Every structure is written in structure tokens, then in C-alpha cells.
């Protein structure tokens, strides 16, 4: 078979799916030397030692077998306990919690479990890169609503009212947000919850950055009155515990939804890796201090980066969580990122990777030491001064 013929074999849906902006940019960066990257979506910390030690111990013990589809009972119990302790929401470890291969898998399960062909799901832009593809791969349609920087990237429920229709099944929310770092207050969440009730929507809530909230206390939307059963709560260990490569997360939902998700999970994944499940147990049991220390460090970096961006004069919303900031730079973000990389060896992600209407934005990740951030921002400042001079000539 020649290339063209092979290509014909690819499913239409997949063929037509655009290559992610992140991957395009990744291809540019790879092979370049002396690059400081602010394009990273994962912690620069190594997984805390007690967690790594627990992994080694589990391997020594020979724990390399399958677990139950749902995940180890001990882990589900720890997850249940931690959510109840931190947020006052109870999920039954028996039939309302599924341990997944990261939030990524949980998101895939959630969308596939609830979407019928052509049903719509509201996605709030700028958004994490996987939401729209997941909805589409589940044969749904993404109903994109774009927030704007003037409103601090917050959801305006009146505008949601304008786009929602009978065919809308669910909405995906994510706070603290990737790429903006914005989070929601209880009051804002109540408005979203009311909207969901009024239109009978399921809320898929990606709260993977909950523990990295800097100025307030995180409120899971499932903790609001009367909303829990229409929420699919997604969380994981990648960010707060610096466990990205261990690929482990979980989904919590009403038992009927959980049961539906489990059906897909058991045939596509069977179970999450047992080694990572043991790591997750240790993280929940003894990880608090490490999380706190990392969070304090991220907060300082957040402050540092925010001031540098303000000094440069970019329009910017102060991130309240996660480790990203999403400034408007006033010129084409793709070009800016490309030139910045070529001229100054600093990598950032063009803003339009997170929504097509954010052409003059970039995403900056502050999962790097203050020393590296300083060097990167010194280079960015130099670069901007050079552009300014070019313009005046």
C-alpha cells in the first residue's frame, strides 16, 4: 500500500483533527540547545522521596499484578477520605470512585460515558488542549464559549444562556485553569451550578490543580448544595505531587455514571498501573508537607512572574492557582513565540493552542526555579526592546 492509500484508511474524525499547537511547537524546540523553557506543563520538582521509596518497596514486594478494575481498595478509601476531609464531599469508595490512568483517561471515560452522537458539550476557552478532541472522539460536538481577559477569564452565565440548546448534554469546567491560572469563587460556582441545573447538564469538573490554589480555599463544585450527582469530579496526582509520568488519577461520580465509566475503563485500560497506585496511596497518606512546600514555592514564582510581566507592560490576569499565566502580548502569539525561541532561546506556548480566538496571547509556565525565570524574563525583555527598536526605525 502506498502512503496515500494508507492515509485513506484513517478514520475521518481523526484525519480531520488538527495537530495540536503544542506538538507543532514542540517539533520546533526539539534539538535546540541552551533553551530555557517556559512551555512546560508539569512540575520541575521530582516526586517526593517518600513516594518514590514506596514505589521501590512495592516492587520489592513483587506487586506487579493487575488490580481490580476500579483500583486498589485501599487507594479508593484514601481518595474518599481525603475528599471528605478536605472538602466535606463524600464519595463511596465501593461504587463512586474509579482510579484512572491520569485525569486524561478520566476525561475520556467521562465524555464517552455520557455523550450520544452529536450531543453538545460546552467547552470554556481558553481550555486545556484535550477537551475538544475528547468530546469529538466521543462523537459529540464541542460548543465553544470564549471568555475574555477583560472579565478576568471568568464565565459569564448570561452568555452561556445564549449558546446553550436542547441538544446540550454537559459542560466541562477546569479551575484552577490551564492555561490562565484563574479559579472560581463559591459564588461564581453557584451561578454555574444553577445554570447546569436549569438546563439539566452534567458538569465534568477537572480540578487537577485544586491543591495548587494560592490565595483562597479551593471549592469543588460537587460540594455545592444539590449538585453533586450531576458532577463528574476529576482529579489526580500529576501536578500537586509531581507525579506526571506515573500516570495516575481518578474520577468520582454518582454510582450510575461511575458504573458506565467503569464499563469503558475495564475494556480499554483494565486497571491503572499498580506501581502508581501504591505511589498514590503514599502520596495521600504522607504527602501533605511536600505539597505544601511545593505550593509555597509556586506561589513565590507566581508573584515573581506576575511582577515581571506587569513591568514589561503586558495585559495580564494574576493567576490564583496552577502554574501558568496567560498574558496578552498585543502581537501575534505564534510569531512572537517562534521569534523569541529563535532569537533568545526562550520557549513559551502560543496562546492559540488553547483556543482559536487567542491569537495575541502566550502561555507562560512558571514550573521553573526563580533563577531560571529571571534569566528567561531578562531575555524576553531584551527581545521586546529589540522589537520596539525595529518598529521605530
Amino acid at each position, binding site marked *: 500500500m502506498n502512503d496515500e492509500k494508507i492515509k485513506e484508511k484513517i478514520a475521518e474524525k481523526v484525519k480531520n483533527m488538527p495537530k*495540536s499547537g*503544542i506538538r507543532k*511547537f*514542540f517539533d520546533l*524546540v*526539539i534539538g535546540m540547545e541552551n*533553551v530555557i*523553557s517556559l*512551555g*512546560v*506543563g*508539569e512540575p*520541575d520538582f*521530582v516526586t517526593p522521596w517518600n513516594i518514590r521509596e514506596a514505589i521501590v518497596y512495592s516492587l520489592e514486594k513483587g506487586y506487579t499484578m493487575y488490580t481490580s478494575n476500579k483500583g486498589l481498595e485501599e487507594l479508593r478509601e484514601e481518595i474518599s477520605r481525603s475528599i471528605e476531609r478536605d472538602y466535606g464531599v463524600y464519595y463511596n469508595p465501593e461504587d463512586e470512585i474509579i482510579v484512572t490512568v491520569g485525569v486524561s483517561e478520566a476525561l475520556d471515560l467521562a465524555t464517552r460515558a455520557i455523550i450520544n452522537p452529536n450531543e453538545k458539550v460546552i467547552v470554556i476557552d481558553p481550555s*486545556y*488542549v*484535550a477537551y475538544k478532541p475528547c468530546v469529538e472522539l466521543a462523537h459529540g460536538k464541542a460548543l465553544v464559549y470564549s471568555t475574555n481577559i477583560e472579565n478576568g477569564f471568568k464565565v459569564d452565565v448570561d452568555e452561556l444562556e445564549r449558546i446553550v440548546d436542547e441538544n446540550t448534554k454537559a459542560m466541562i469546567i477546569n479551575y484552577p485553569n*490551564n492555561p490562565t491560572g484563574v479559579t472560581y469563587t463559591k459564588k461564581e460556582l453557584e451561578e454555574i451550578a444553577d445554570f447546569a441545573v436549569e438546563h439539566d447538564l452534567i458538569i465534568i469538573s477537572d480540578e487537577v490543580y485544586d491543591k495548587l490554589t494560592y490565595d483562597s480555599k479551593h471549592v469543588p463544585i460537587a460540594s455545592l448544595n444539590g449538585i453533586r450527582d450531576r458532577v463528574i469530579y476529576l482529579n489526580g496526582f500529576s501536578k500537586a505531587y509531581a507525579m506526571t509520568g506515573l500516570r495516575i488519577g481518578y474520577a468520582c461520580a454518582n454510582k450510575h455514571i461511575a458504573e458506565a465509566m467503569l464499563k469503558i475503563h475495564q475494556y480499554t485500560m483494565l486497571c491503572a498501573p499498580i506501581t502508581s497506585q501504591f505511589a498514590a496511596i503514599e502520596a495521600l497518606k504522607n504527602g501533605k508537607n511536600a505539597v505544601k512546600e511545593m505550593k*509555597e514555592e509556586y506561589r*513565590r*514564582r507566581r*508573584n*515573581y512572574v506576575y*511582577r*515581571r510581566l506587569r513591568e514589561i507592560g503586558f495585559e495580564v490576569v494574576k493567576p490564583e492557582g496552577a502554574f501558568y499565566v496567560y498574558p496578552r502580548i498585543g502581537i501575534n502569539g505564534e510569531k512572537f513565540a517562534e521569534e523569541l525561541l529563535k532569537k533568545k532561546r526562550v*520557549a513559551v*506556548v502560543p496562546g492559540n*493552542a488553547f483556543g482559536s480566538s487567542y491569537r495575541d496571547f502566550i502561555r507562560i509556565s512558571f514550573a521553573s526555579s*526563580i*533563577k531560571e525565570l*529571571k534569566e528567561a524574563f531578562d531575555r524576553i525583555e531584551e527581545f521586546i526592546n529589540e522589537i520596539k527598536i525595529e518598529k521605530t526605525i
Partner: protein
Amino acid sequence: MENKDVEILRMLEEDAKLSISEIAKALELEEEEVKRKIREFEEKGIILKYKAVIDWEKVGLERVCALIDVKVAPERDKGYDSVANRIAGFPEVKALYLVSGAYDLSVLVEGRDMKEVASFVAEKLAPLERVQSTTTHFILKRYKENGIKFFGEEDKRRRLAISP
């Protein structure tokens, strides 16, 4: 002490080369304020010194260290303090602790070679009035000091430069 003060100290303890400007930005303070606070810490003897942590083994100028357990007969009214003060004065003594258990003082002594350390113990430490006995443990290998590991470095280079 207020929170920001502690944070300034923590940041400097981690990296004493951080500039005033970096600290100010990271803690949402004005540079003048940070400068004033650090001066205060120095004046009050809260910040005692700024030092580099050096792996002398790599330089090839490794020094010999020993931990010495010392039994002391405490002095009336003064307890261990005056003996400790006399021991601490020697430049060979890098650290000195009063400890609970089978002996009283734990002394970290550094010298050019084993002979130098041994003669320090024999000539200076053991003969001190009130010192009843000493047990010397030479340090054979340093694995971790001041929270810094000397081996088994973590490799962070595999982190992807761009990820979602």
C-alpha cells in the same frame, strides 16, 4: 516574626545569592523593604553569615573529619556551658552539640589528616578539665550534609521542553 520575614530567611537559606529584586518580586514586597529587613536580620545576628557549600572531595582537598563523643562532669551553676565554650573556641571544632544519652557533648572536628585530628583530641580536648572521656569516630564518607546530598544526583533533563 511575621510570615514574610520567615519567607525571606527561607529563600536566603536555600539560595543566599538571590538578589533583593528577585526576593521582593517573589514576596510581593518593595525592594527597599526587603533591603531594610535583611539589614535588620544581619544586625540582630539572625543572619550570621553567607557561605558556599563546597564539595571539597571534588577539588581534591578533602579534609578529615571526626565525630567525638565527650563525657563531661558538669560544673556547679554553669552546667556544661563553660566547658562547651572552651571547646567551641578551637577553630578545629566545626560543630558542637549537647546531646542526651550515653555521653554529653558531640564534637565535629576537622583536620588536614588523621594525625592532626588525633593529636587535637589527645592534646587539646581530652586533657580539658572536667572532660572525663572521649570516643573518636572518623568519618569515612559523607552522604549528606546541611540537607544537601553528595551523591545520586537526580536527572531532570528528561522533562519535555513543551507539554500541554
